[in-house]
Structure formats: structure tokens, C-alpha cells
């Protein structure tokens, strides 16, 4: 350090420039990276969405595989060491069901004579991947007939369906309904909020009153009333979209408020004024100056809206007013689990609850991290 050569002035300027050219996106990334919980949550959510996208392949069974042989069966024990103390690749023993002579409850015992090794990419119940290709390859399984033996990591429900399969299939509906609901809210919010902010005056006033009005009705009772109005005979897909519509019916109001508020606040900003003074067109001002400066904020708000939608769908389905079986969503699964007996005797049917809570938590952390990062210049 003592013989450090003097840095020429232009080189100095270069170093300075290097700091100055960090784009807002880079700075956001730096800031986001510091929020450890948000980074972990992102990884978790990517994992969950991958599960949901490839749910047919990932799950070892199919959702309509009810079976009297596995009614309320506990999770399978994966073993590496057999009774004689020898090491093997992961395997399960044959489970045998008997009934308690008094309570008639099923009792499951392991038969240590028969071993079933767990295979990757093994065959299993047939399914149509994405409803397109017929196949029977699953990520893992035992490769034997369903009735002979199953590997059930999370146990089975009352009618003998594999809980892991149900939870993973449920993820597809529960996770997507959040995104669709938010997309619908955003669409409505931007259009209506934009109209409100753009025209101002009487239209703005009217829209603001409508928004205030909708917000003054408690959401959950309103959703209950609206979803109770859906005809029972509707097919799953139609109910699915109807529920997303109902959820976004109230969701758009906060989106519209945010968009309008940001637009109005930004109109007053100095950099918008200077853009206007240098002769930028109105369209260019909106697209080049205004949208980028609040896009990140909107993304953060959206991320925080997704878990709310997921929770709402779960709540509605849970009380029997949202999706109904044969649809498989986390709420539907929890509704089926909803009695004190199942809580006490088969706690594993509550895995969907763990999925809901962890997903919602992850979305909240992610949204929090994004919101912090959205303003990279803040302290």
C-alpha cells in the first residue's frame, strides 16, 4: 500500500463510472439478494410450481385411485436397512391391513418378508400427461400393481387415495387460481384505474365511489354469497373460472387504487415535468418514464396479492362454497378432512394445510423482498 501508484485522473473517473452505471435492475437484484428469506422463498415457489406443472408425472398415483385396501393408511416407512441389518437401496415392506375386532378400525402392519425397492421412473397407474399423452411412467414408484403395494410418502385419505398425489394435484389448481385471479384483478384494475386516472373529474369520482363501496362490503361474506349462487351442476372448469372471477371482483379495487394513485403521484414528479418540457409525447412519457418507475412496485404488490387469492380459494372450498369434488384443490382436500376424528386419528390428511401455509408464507417473503428491492435507492 505504501508504494501505491498515483491513479491518473481519467482512470479515477472510470472507476466512478463503473459505480454509476449499475442499472436500476442490477441494484434491485443486489438489494433483493440481501433478503435471504425472499431468495429461499423464490427457490421454494419455483419448486412448488414445477410440481404443479408436472403433477401427473411427479405423483406416484392418480387422484381417482380410491382403494379400500389403503383407507386412512399411514405414511409408508422408507427403509434402508432390513430386519437382518443389511443395507439396501430405499425400499418399503409389504403392508397388510387387518381390522380391530372391536372398533372395526383398519390396522396396518408391515410384513418384513416381502421387500419392494423404490424405483425411479417406474410404471404405475396410467394417466394422460397434460391431458394429451397417455403414459404410465411416474417419477418414482414400486413398479407393481396398485392393489399389491404402494409407496405413500404422506399416507392415504379416508377413501384410500395417496395424499402426496392429492396434494400435488391440488397444487395445480390452488397455485394457478392465485395467478389467474391476480391477472384478472390486474387487468380490470389497470383498465378501470387507468380510465379513472386518465379522465379524472366525474368519471374518476364515480369509479372511486364504486371502489369504496365494494371495499366496504366484507370480502368473505360477499364471496360466500356469490359462490353460493353458482349452480351445483356446473363442470369443474367452469366453477374454477367463476371462482377466479369472484375473487378478482374485489381484488381489482385495490389494484385500481394503486395504479391510479401511482399515476397521479407521478404526474407531479419533477422528472415527468422535465420529460414534458423536453418535448416528449404523452405516450412516450407514460411508457418510457412512468411505467418503468412503478412497474417494480406493481410487481411487488401483485406478489403480495397472490397468496391472498390462494387463501381465499382455500377458504371458500373449505366451507364447501368454492370448488367441489371431483375437483382437487387444497381447499377441497381440507374440506374432506374437516372433522375432529380425522384430526386425531389421521393427522397426515392435513398435509395440504402445510402446503397452503408454506406457499402463502413464501409468497409473502418474496413480496416483501421485492417491495424492498423495488426501491433500490431507499436506505
Amino acid at each position, binding site marked *: *500500500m*505504501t508504494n*501505491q501508484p*498515483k491513479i491518473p485522473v481519467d482512470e*479515477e473517473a472510470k472507476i466512478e463510472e463503473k459505480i454509476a452505471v449499475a442499472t436500476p435492475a442490477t441494484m434491485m437484484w443486489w438489494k433483493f439478494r440481501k433478503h435471504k428469506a425472499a431468495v429461499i422463498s423464490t427457490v421454494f415457489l419455483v419448486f412448488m410450481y414445477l410440481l404443479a406443472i408436472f403433477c401427473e408425472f411427479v405423483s406416484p398415483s392418480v387422484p381417482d385411485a380410491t382403494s379400500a385396501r389403503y383407507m386412512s393408511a399411514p405414511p409408508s416407512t422408507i427403509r434402508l436397512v432390513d430386519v437382518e441389518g443389511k443395507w439396501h437401496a430405499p425400499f418399503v415392506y409389504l403392508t397388510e391391513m387387518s381390522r380391530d375386532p372391536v372398533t372395526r378400525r383398519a390396522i396396518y402392519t408391515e410384513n418384513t418378508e416381502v421387500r419392494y425397492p423404490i424405483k425411479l421412473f417406474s410404471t404405475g397407474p396410467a394417466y394422460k400427461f397434460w391431458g394429451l399423452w397417455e403414459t404410465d411412467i411416474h417419477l418414482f414408484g414400486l413398479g407393481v400393481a396398485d392393489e399389491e403395494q404402494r409407496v405413500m410418502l404422506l399416507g392415504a385419505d379416508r377413501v384410500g387415495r395417496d395424499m402426496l398425489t392429492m396434494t400435488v394435484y391440488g397444487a395445480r389448481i390452488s397455485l394457478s387460481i392465485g395467478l389467474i385471479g391476480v391477472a384478472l384483478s390486474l387487468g380490470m384494475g389497470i383498465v378501470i384505474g387507468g380510465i379513472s386516472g386518465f379522465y379524472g373529474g366525474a368519471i374518476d369520482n364515480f369509479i372511486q365511489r364504486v371502489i369504496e363501496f365494494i371495499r366496504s362490503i366484507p370480502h368473505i361474506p360477499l364471496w360466500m354469497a356469490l359462490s353460493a349462487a353458482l349452480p351445483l351442476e356446473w363442470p369443474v372448469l367452469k366453477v374454477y373460472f367463476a371462482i377466479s372471477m369472484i375473487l378478482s371482483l374485489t381484488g381489482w379495487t385495490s389494484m385500481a387504487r394503486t395504479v391510479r394513485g401511482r399515476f397521479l403521484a407521478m404526474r407531479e414528479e419533477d422528472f415527468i415535468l422535465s420529460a414534458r418540457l423536453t418535448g416528449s409525447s404523452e405516450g412516450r412519457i407514460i411508457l418510457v418514464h412512468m411505467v418503468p418507475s412503478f412497474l417494480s412496485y406493481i410487481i411487488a404488490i401483485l406478489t403480495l396479492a397472490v397468496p391472498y387469492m390462494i387463501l381465499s380459494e382455500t377458504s371458500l372450498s373449505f366451507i364447501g362454497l368454492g370448488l367441489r369434488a371431483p375437483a382437487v384443490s387444497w381447499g377441497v382436500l381440507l374440506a374432506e378432512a374437516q372433522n375432529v376424528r380425522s384430526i386425531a386419528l389421521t393427522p397426515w390428511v392435513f398435509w395440504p394445510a402445510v402446503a397452503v401455509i408454506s406457499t402463502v408464507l413464501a409468497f409473502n417473503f418474496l413480496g416483501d423482498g421485492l417491495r424492498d428491492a423495488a426501491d433500490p435507492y431507499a436506505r
Partner: protein
Amino acid sequence: MNESNPLLQIKDLKTYFFLDEGTVKAVDGADLELGTCSTLGVVGESGCGKSVAARSIMQIVAKGGRIVSGEILFHHQLCKPGTDRRLSEKEEVIDLAMLDPQGDKIRSIRGAEISMVFQEPMTSLSPVHTIGNQIGEVISLHQKLDPKQAREKAIAMLDHVGMPLPKRTIDRYPHELSGGMRQRAMIAMALSCHPSLLIADEPTTALDVTTEAQILSLMRKLQDELGMSIMFITHNLGVIAQMADRVAVMYLGKVVEAASVDTLFYKPLHPYTQALMESIPRLGAKKRRGERLASIRGSVPDPYNLPKGCPFHPRCAKRVPNVCDREEPPNLKVDQGHEVRCVLYK
């Protein structure tokens, strides 16, 4: 002014901020001296540590920062309340740097013996409490008066600082007052316990020029009446010329030059001070066509990465190669009351 009668002596003060990104040496070995009933002007660019130095005196440095070393000797004049401080015989010397920032001792000095006026009168007053509440609080805290007496005292104080209709203004909220009135309220609050030292941290920067002039003359008037010293922090050299008896120029946490106000303006020695003086536009000064007002090249370096040697050398026009970038210049006493940190005067 009595030179031999110091009120505050800061010796080699170091206040560092320990942050995730690194250590910021906001004040890095500053020496200041302030006599009784005089005004010390502290000038420097933003980020030179002048505000942190002021906060170090009061032990209210922001989170993450603390006084690492150095002395802040405060000569506490022990006299009966209400009598002229200048006549006091006894004094007690307290090293403020050694006090616990949350302790009773420093809290009995804060607001009573040393008080502070801040830059933004709008944001420096609580938006949800009345002026009277905020002034009365400091009076009843330090003078043990009941709320009614405190209120009367507050009204008297508002009247003293020239607040119009003090009996009505006392129940107003800050947002109901103009900027100048808010700063008057701020000053009333700071002076309500007759401190011996008032620290004014850019008190007029946020005000318009007319209001600034009023506030400045008010401060001079109050200084004469109450017999207090003022530490006046600003980056405005014009204000300094008007207010200060002595001036200290700060650069990157160090006092690079200290002198009486006249010496500093007519005979600046440090290259930084000289550059500052040249950057003042002068009314009536003849400039050739096309000649531009001088400015200091570059900007204040990255606070995490201070240059070695003299902190000013990368921007200095008179730097001596292989000297300025290696060794820290000593504090040189060039004349009576004129000190400079520069190797050129060795």
C-alpha cells in the same frame, strides 16, 4: 470576546459509523475550540462531517455511529439561574465524549446547557403536537415547572423570538405556520432553558433569503441578550461572514483550517479554503468575457474508501507528489489563532 475563556474544546474527536457496507469515518480527528459568548462557524461540503461533529457534542449521533476516541471538554458555568453567565466564577469541566448517550448527566445538559436548532423546521417539529406542547415539554423537563408556568414561559419565549400573536400561536400545529415562524418556534424551544451553547445546524438553508436574514439577525440579537455561544454550521460562506467570529473549515472529517473570520476571508492558507473562496460569486467583481466561476474539481471521495495521506490531495491543485499522497499533514499553527493542516506551510 475573551480568547482565554473557552466554553468548548474538541480534541482529536473521532466519530465512526459501523455499517454493513463498511466503516464510515465521518469525523476523523477533528479539533475545535469555542470561547464563551462567541460564534464559531463550521463550513464544508455535504458529507464533510460537520453535522456529525455537532451531534457528537450532544451525544445524539444516529444509529450505527459512535464516538471512538477524543475529548469534548465542556466548561459548565455554575451560576444561579437567571444571572449573567459571563459573571460566573466557578466552572466545572465535563468530557462529554465520556458520557453514556442515554445517561442522566448528558440528558441534563442536552436541551438545557447545550441545545440545537435543525435544518428543516417543518420536519424537525413533531407534526402531531402543538408548538406549545413541544416547547413546554423542554421547559418543564429542565426547570421543574408545572404545566401552567411552563406554558407562560413558552409564551414569553415565543414573544422573545418575535413570534406574532404568541398566545394564539402556542396552540398551533407546525403545519399551520410558515417556514420562518416554524424556525422561530424551533429557536424559542432551543433557547427556552437559556443554554450556554446553541448549535445551529444549517438553520436557514431551507428558508428563503428574506426570512434567512430575519432569522440571522434574530440569532445575533438573542446571543447578545442571553450571553450564549453559537456553533453555526453551514455551507454558505456568506452566512459565515455575517455570523461568525471564528471559522473552522472541515473536509472529510478533519478541520483543515481554523482562523478568525477576517483572516480566513482575506488570507486563506489551505488550498481547499482558497478553492472555496474562489467559488463564491462576487457582486461587482470584474470578470472577463467567457471566464467561468471557479469550482473545485471532482467531488467528495467515497466515504468507505478515503484517500491515503492528505484527504484533499486527489482534488488539490497544489499537491506535492510523493508527499501529500503519503503522509498526513500535521496541524500547523501559522499565526496567533490561525491553524492549518497542510504541508505547504511547514
